[in-house]
């Protein structure tokens, strides 16, 4: 029985916003057609709600009350100093930068110099300049069919980075992709990155979503990154989503690993009123190694959801997941980790761990590990823990003269430290550690 559910205000405004802005969104006729198809799909799907199994704990019909007008073109005045302020510890990182403000490429804030083995260009240019077929290809995703956040991204995306790392190239410096929210008007910013690394290459790519000082606090971001890791290539990928406390962050990573490829993904999330981080990973060749980890910090009524689907489609691949959340006040953390082991994916080795540190009795942690194993010669395991700060450890620290607030901070750092340690780049790990410390200090104030 199908009962038509009335559209929510947000669903209604998203549909209307598309009609109003379609002509202004970049891309050839084929691209516009793909956008129209996507919004059509969204109109049918609506925002996901708790009766959709994958969204059981993160009901967008309830939690995304207002849809903001889409960012289409941007003229916000942003200086390098503004950007440095928002980037905090990342500002000093020795990296190749490409910068987007409100979803539009900013050449004047980006590095123009050529780097051997690295090709970076704004998606907006490719969508407009490329032949229809190519441009249409750029619109496709490898993500799950019927995902509303992906459909919305296709409909509204304005820009992003197309990144290619050449076969055999080893990038000396990380590529830092900055997505800054600026300006007094709160908007929905939709960006898409397409990253493909060549066989035998090695690279580190950072996605930093930051809010500039003075920008509207309640901005919404929908970010999708398509990643293809070449054969025997190594890719480290780190996303930092440091919000204002009122911002909304919807993110998708669709990862495909080539034969013997290594992919290390890390996500840091803080200050998001609502965040949903989806990672869909599939092994395209044997011998792939996937290591996903993350740390998220939640306070007030913030809500951070990490949803993973790891598809062991071929044999002899390895997956590791470690996600740690610090939950204060009435904050909520959600972890959903599905590991699928296909019938011929023998010798699969998968391990998953989700942990929450509950700083308040009103915080909530929902964890749903799912193993779907169809092969018989595999090693797969998962675990979930949620605990308060250890009173005995707190006493131990205090008995050594460390004041309670410092002792708490030390123990919280020690909790997320295990996840941060997954970030191999020293400068980046230290920058993340400083961000986490700043979050902890803010808690005291």
């Amino acid at each position: 029985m199908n009962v038509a559910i009335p559209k929510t205000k947000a669903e209604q405004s998203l549909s209307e916003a598309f009609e109003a802005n379609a002509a202004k969104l970049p891309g050839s006729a084929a691209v516009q057609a793909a956008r129209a198809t996507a919004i059509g799909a969204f109109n049918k799907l609506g925002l996901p709600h708790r009766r959709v199994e994958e969204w059981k704990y993160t009901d967008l019909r309830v939690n995304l009350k207002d849809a903001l007008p889409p960012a289409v073109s941007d003229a916000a005045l942003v200086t390098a100093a503004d950007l440095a302020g928002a980037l905090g510890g990342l500002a000093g990182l020795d990296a190749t930068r490409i910068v987007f403000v409100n979803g539009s490429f900013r050449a004047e804030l980006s590095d123009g110099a050529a780097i051997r083995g690295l090709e970076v260009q704004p998606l907006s240019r490719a969508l407009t300049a490329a032949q229809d077929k190519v441009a249409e290809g750029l619109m496709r995703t490898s993500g799950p069919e019927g995902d509303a956040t992906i459909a919305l991204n296709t409909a509204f995306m304005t820009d992003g980075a197309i990144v290619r790392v050449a076969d055999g190239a080893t990038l000396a410096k990380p590529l830092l992709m900055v997505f800054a929210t600026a300006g007094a008007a709160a908007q929905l910013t939709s960006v898409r990155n397409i990253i493909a690394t060549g066989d035998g290459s090695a690279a580190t790519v950072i996605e930093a979503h930051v809010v500039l000082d003075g920008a509207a606090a309640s901005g919404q971001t929908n970010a999708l990154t398509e990643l293809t890791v070449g054969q025997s290539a190594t890719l480290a990928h780190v996303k930092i989503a440091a919000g204002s406390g009122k911002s909304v962050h919807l993110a998708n990573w669709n990862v495909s690993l080539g034969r013997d490829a290594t992919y290390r993904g890390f996500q840091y999330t803080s200050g998001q009123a609502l965040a949903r981080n989806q990672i869909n990973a599939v092994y395209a060749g044997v011998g792939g190694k996937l290591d996903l980890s993350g740390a998220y910090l939640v306070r007030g009524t913030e809500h951070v959801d990490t949803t993973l689907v790891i598809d062991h489609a071929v044999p002899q691949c390895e997956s590791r997941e470690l996600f740690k959340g610090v939950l204060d006040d009435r904050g909520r953390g959600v972890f959903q980790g599905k590991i699928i082991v296909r019938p011929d994916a023998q010798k699969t080795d998968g391990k998953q761990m989700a942990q929450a540190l509950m700083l308040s009795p009103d915080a909530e942690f929902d964890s749903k590990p799912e193993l779907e194993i169809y092969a018989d010669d595999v090693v797969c395991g998962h675990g979930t823990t949620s605990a308060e700060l250890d009173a005995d450890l707190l006493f131990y620290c205090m008995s050594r003269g460390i004041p309670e607030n410092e002792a708490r901070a030390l123990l919280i750092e020690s909790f997320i430290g295990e996840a941060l340690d997954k970030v191999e780049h020293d400068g980046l790990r230290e920058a993340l550690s400083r961000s986490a410390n700043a979050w902890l200090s803010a808690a005291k104030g």
Partner: protein
Amino acid sequence: MLEIKNLHVKLADEDKQILKGLTLTVPKGEVHAIMGPNGSGKSTLSYVIAGRDGYEVTEGDILWNGESILEMAPDERAAKGVFLAFQYPMEIPGVAGLTFLRTAVNAVRKKRGQDEMTTPGFMKYVKEQAAKLNIDFEMLKRPVNVGFSGGEKKRSEILQMAMLEPTLCVLDETDSGLDIDALKIVSDGVNALRSPDRATLVITHYQRLLNHIVPDKVHVLADGRIQKTGGKELALELEKSGYAGYTGKAA
């Protein structure tokens, strides 16, 4: 001077009286030993001195240098010079030993009105103290006590003690889990800290530790009170005759 006066302590969330009028004085410059059977309240006494939650003082007081410490948080007591070497030192995953030591040393120095230690000054001092206790410096780069053997944990406690320069040292069953070599190293570490400005309370079940750390006085704690006080020879007596005479039943 440590003065414990008529101390009555019960568990906070259970109607169980553990200390029942314990009175004890340890002047500066002296080392006193408290010996007693299991369950006599030895560890409770050490925790109440250090300020652990979960105990309720129903009567009496603990004075350190004439000032009651019962209302002070554990970190304030540490700043006043109180140090407890734990029977079971805690592991703190994710916090490097050096970071922990430095945070503690500087927190205590700050509260005592001393300047924080500079990095080179701190490193030099840690290296010296660690070498004295036969602690591999590399171990201090690892998370606090994680993966340490029993002996390593106890040595790490004595290192913390040396670094924090307390004036009241309470050692809770420091000899448990130590082989004879480790016992000697730990005892030497404690003896090195003997000074006219420092009062030390050694809590132990067995006499053997007191061969190495020779006490000025020995107190027998049983059934929540000091039953007898004597010189170091009392420990030997106890080793021979046991605690049976103090508990009314065979130990």
